[in-house]
């Protein structure tokens, strides 16, 4: 009698504790459901409809997807441009980040200071950085123009924000300035994880710096490198502010990114169903990138 009542007391107590645990997560779960899970499902549903801002939604099956791949040339162009941007900027960021990481790795009183300085542009927003860049490289009023003039190369006639390639280069320089410090910090963490003995052994065996770097250090840093590539690839695939604010898609939609075009469809033309379909396509591309990451991470495990 007393034993059974004690036992039921424990279960009710542990059940109550389980409820406490669940209740603690409820607010977060509620918000996640409303603004993440529901929108995910709604997005797929919307993509199968003609869904104007006001008025009736009509089911049109896969027409939005057909339109994206056949009649909307700008969308395919924007995906192509986004991929070009991603493929160009990823190695640039990686090698410059690696260079900076090797630079600030030196044991010196200055290292911490330089690390902080190189990282600091990362914390300002993409929008603020883009406005800053508009000013910085403005061919008439900007500081770059002032320096160029002082050196005898007047640039007030250039139009490097309104042409495709110069515009892209400008954005790449700005983004590199802004985010290379982030790559530096993560690569520094990776470099510090490589045991000194391994490098010394290679040194003793007569391996030169370049050889030590590419045959020993970088392969050992594979998890860090895979992670960085995923950050920079998924970040670049979602690029928006830097092109919306700096090149503004000029000259003629050549510098429009995928997210920029989704913004145009959903929030300029208010074709919400079509915007949702484009978003689904973009989401699938991002999930493929994530899947490749998982594969590459698993590859790391197999090697060990």
């Amino acid at each position, binding site marked *: 009698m007393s034993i059974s009542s004690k036992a039921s007391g424990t279960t009710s107590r542990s059940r109550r*504790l*389980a409820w*406490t*645990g*669940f209740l*603690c*997560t409820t*607010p*977060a*779960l509620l*918000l996640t459901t*409303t*603004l*993440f*899970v529901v*929108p*995910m499902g*709604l*997005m797929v549903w*919307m993509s199968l409809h003609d869904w104007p801002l006001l008025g009736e939604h009509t089911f049109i099956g896969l027409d939005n997807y057909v339109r994206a791949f056949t009649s909307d040339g700008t969308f395919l162009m924007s995906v192509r441009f986004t991929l070009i941007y991603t493929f160009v900027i990823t190695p640039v960021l990686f090698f410059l980040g690696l260079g*900076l990481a090797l630079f600030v790795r030196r044991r*010196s009183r200055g290292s911490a200071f*330089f690390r*902080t*300085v190189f990282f*600091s542009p990362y*914390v*300002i*927003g*993409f929008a*603020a950085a883009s*406005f*800053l860049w*508009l*000013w*910085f490289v403005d061919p*008439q*009023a900007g*500081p770059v*123009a002032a320096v160029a003039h002082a050196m005898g190369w007047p640039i*007030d006639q250039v139009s490097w924000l309104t042409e495709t390639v110069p515009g892209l280069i400008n954005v790449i320089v700005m983004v590199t300035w802004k985010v290379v410090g*982030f790559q530096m*910090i*993560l690569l520094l*963490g990776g470099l510090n994880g490589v045991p000194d003995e391994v490098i010394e052994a290679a040194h003793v065996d007569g391996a030169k710096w370049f050889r030590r770097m590419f045959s020993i250090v970088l392969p050992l840093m594979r998890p*860090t490198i895979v*992670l960085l590539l995923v950050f920079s690839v*998924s970040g670049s695939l*979602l690029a*928006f502010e830097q092109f919306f*604010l700096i090149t503004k898609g000029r000259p003629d939609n050549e510098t429009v990114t995928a*997210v920029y075009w989704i*913004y145009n469809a*959903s*929030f300029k033309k208010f074709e919400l169903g079509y915007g*949702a379909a484009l*978003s689904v396509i973009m*989401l699938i591309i*991002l*999930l493929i990138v994530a899947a490749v990451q998982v594969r590459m991470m698993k590859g790391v495990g197999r090697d060990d």
Partner: protein
Amino acid sequence: MTTELAPRTEALITGASPRRFDQRTRNRAQGLLWWVGGIVLAAMFIFPLLSAITGSLKSPAELRERPATLWPKAVSFEAWERLFDPAEGVMTGVGNSLFVTGLTVALTVVLATLAGYGLARYRFRGSGVVFTVILAGMMIPFTVLLTPISVVLRELGLFNSLIGIALVYTTYQLPFCVFIMRNSFAAIPMEIEEAALLDGCTRANVLIRVFLPLVLPGIATSAIFAFLNAWNEFLAALVLLTDQNRFTLPIVLQSNQIGRMGTVDWGLLDAGVVVSMVPCLIIFFLLQRYYVAGIFAGAAK
């Protein structure tokens, strides 16, 4: 010449072998080169940031001067006076940004702490599912979900609302912060809780008196990330706010960018950029340790 002579005298005085000395001069030369390189690089990183400040201190006349001047010839606070002028709308943007950011930070910290506590210290059926659902947002950024989010917010009457946008920011801040907070709570040894319970503490008291001080670094990291992401966010604010009085700072800057007469109002834009950069830089400089800890925690996931 002098470098030829120096080693010998040095060797005579100290009796060190010339070879060791060569090594030392080489190290010293390398060190000097490193410092010079570092200072040049640092200047390149700082120059754009600094140029917004100097640009905001130029008079409108000087900004129109061609060729452009590098440093202000005379310091003028004209742009800053206009920034604080209510008619320009920039201060409304700053106020809206402060409200949205403050609400996001508060909600994120409270919800992430509670959820992290629940997930780390209690076992309940479905806790794995809850964790996965919350963390899934880490893989899927809200950038691609804005179209349906705008529809959901309209249904809830939270479209074009500062509270609505703070809720969106909080939702997409939660995956990272719940992850951080769950790890912080999981790192606390069970014995501490048991000892406190034996001493007659209630569970709520344990959470507030014993746990919170221990997870404070995690809370700091969550708060910093929530602050920076909410303060800097652009695209969601651009599409989810339509009323000019509710624009956050980056959106105000975007809409004011082209001033009257179709030319860019550089002084006001630069001052606005300074206002939007400085809080982030100050927080980073003061709380760098927690920020970098967060980056590595996020990387380790």
